[in-house]
């Protein structure tokens, strides 16, 4: 870091970093997660969360819809903080963009099955959610192009919709990360591509897809090249998982047996991402602590949402416990 950066970055991001240092201390502790898991009822879970930042949003919640709404509000507050943190535009776009693509995916899948998209959209993206409920022709150009490509690839295929949307999302995330000039964010975007590719590869291997089909599904821009991944594709799933867990990529060191279990992949991927984000806590200044905190709060919201909705849906505690991710601490 040059002297100019030493001087300007702490001044530019100092206020947000100061707030983040306090807010990190208000993130849920391991003991709170244990109490949520051990709670005998949903009402008890709400009581446990009453003194946390989620307490006000969850007041009076009693249904899955209430919980979803409460956590969307909590995320909305998180993104308002992000907007006020004086971060560069591409960094904010990096966080907002996934919601736009999630809305696009929801819209295209709803169209596929002839369903209404009402209730499936989340208003946390850069584009207002209601835009995705309107005609495809009125979508922003880049989303319209994706919708057309997905249609060309076979509109009756949910997988092709997901692939087209995810490919575009990662391309845009990589572009935002590059524009932000934050190496940390660039690394995060590349890691997300790697994790998406490994998931695709494992899923394709389990389904015994042809090499060419699997290759076509991989996304460029990660630290693991598509060619390197395809060299592993000939291996059976357990050996493929072992190779990934012992190779040079971001999955080095994970349990290969868990990696081979596709049902566990999301948990493992989130843990790998949290381990990357923890580097941000070691940075005294700059955008990294803010980025790390926002990603960690997103993960926290997802975990608490899982525990509450799991309780409402009667999911056993042991199953919920296995869904818990590594915490940002």
């Amino acid at each position, binding site marked *: 870091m040059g002297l100019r950066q*030493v*001087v300007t970055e702490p*001044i530019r991001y100092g206020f947000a970093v100061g707030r983040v240092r306090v*807010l990190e201390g208000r993130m849920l502790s391991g003991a709170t997660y244990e109490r949520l898991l051990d709670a005998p009822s949903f009402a008890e879970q709400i009581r446990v969360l009453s003194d946390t930042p989620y307490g006000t949003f969850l007041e009076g919640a009693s249904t899955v819809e209430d919980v979803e709404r409460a956590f969307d509000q909590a995320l909305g507050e998180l993104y308002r903080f992000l907007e006020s943190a004086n971060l560069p535009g591409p960094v904010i776009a990096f966080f907002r963009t996934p919601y736009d693509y999630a809305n696009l995916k929801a819209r295209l899948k709803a169209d596929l099955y002839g369903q209404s998209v009402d209730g499936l959209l989340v208003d946390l993206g850069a584009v207002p959610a209601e835009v995705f409920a309107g005609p495809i022709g009125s979508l922003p150009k880049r989303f319209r192009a994706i919708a057309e490509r997905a249609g060309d690839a076979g509109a009756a295929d949910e997988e092709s919709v997901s692939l087209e949307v995810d490919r575009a999302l990662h391309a845009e995330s990589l572009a935002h990360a590059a524009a932000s000039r934050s190496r940390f964010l660039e690394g995060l975007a590349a890691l997300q591509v790697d994790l998406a590719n490994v998931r695709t590869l494992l899923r394709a291997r389990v389904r015994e897809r042809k090499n060419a089909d699997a290759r076509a599904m991989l996304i460029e821009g990660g630290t693991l090249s598509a060619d390197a991944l395809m060299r592993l594709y000939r291996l059976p799933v357990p050996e493929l998982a072992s190779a990934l867990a012992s190779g040079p990529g971001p999955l080095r060191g994970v349990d290969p047996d868990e990696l081979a279990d596709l049902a566990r992949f999301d948990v493992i991927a989130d843990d790998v991402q949290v381990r990357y984000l923890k580097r941000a806590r070691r940075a005294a200044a700059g955008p990294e602590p803010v980025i790390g905190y926002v990603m960690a709060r997103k993960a926290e919201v997802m975990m608490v949402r899982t525990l509450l909705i799991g309780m409402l849906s009667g999911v056993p505690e042991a199953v919920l416990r296995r869904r818990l991710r590594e915490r940002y601490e």
Partner: protein
Amino acid sequence: MNEVVLGMSGTTWALLGAAFAAIGGGIGSAIGITTISNTAAGIVTEDADKFGRVLPLAAMPGTQGIYGLITAILVLSFFGFLGDTVPTISADTGVKIFLGCLPVAAVCLFSAIYQGMTAVGAAGMVARRSEDAGKALIFPALVETYAVFALIATIIILSRIAALYPVG
């Protein structure tokens, strides 16, 4: 004895040294305090009770500005600038005075900036654990050591110049 060095008289060199010390320390302190104050303001925004614990950290890079001012006053005092007439200082002596001011000018400029950076990290400690406020002060204080050493060096150099090369 040279009348001028690089076109400047001894008096000008001496005043330039005093000005450099005051400017270097002042700029460094201003940047250092701005750096830590932004973070401290963010911490206090979320937890007003921490004001008293982060204030010493925010004030710490301010000392380099004081060292620069002390150096400038010493030059003015040791070499007769506080009298009614302008002192006569040879160019060689003026350059020596200028060089004597450089430890404070340079070290205080950079140490205040880096002390502000260190204080940001220390403020992060205080934000997480208020009870660590005492420990947190130690790390930026270590940076202060070198500004103090520079001030001591400058004082010794200036006092020896004043003793060995008395001005008229």
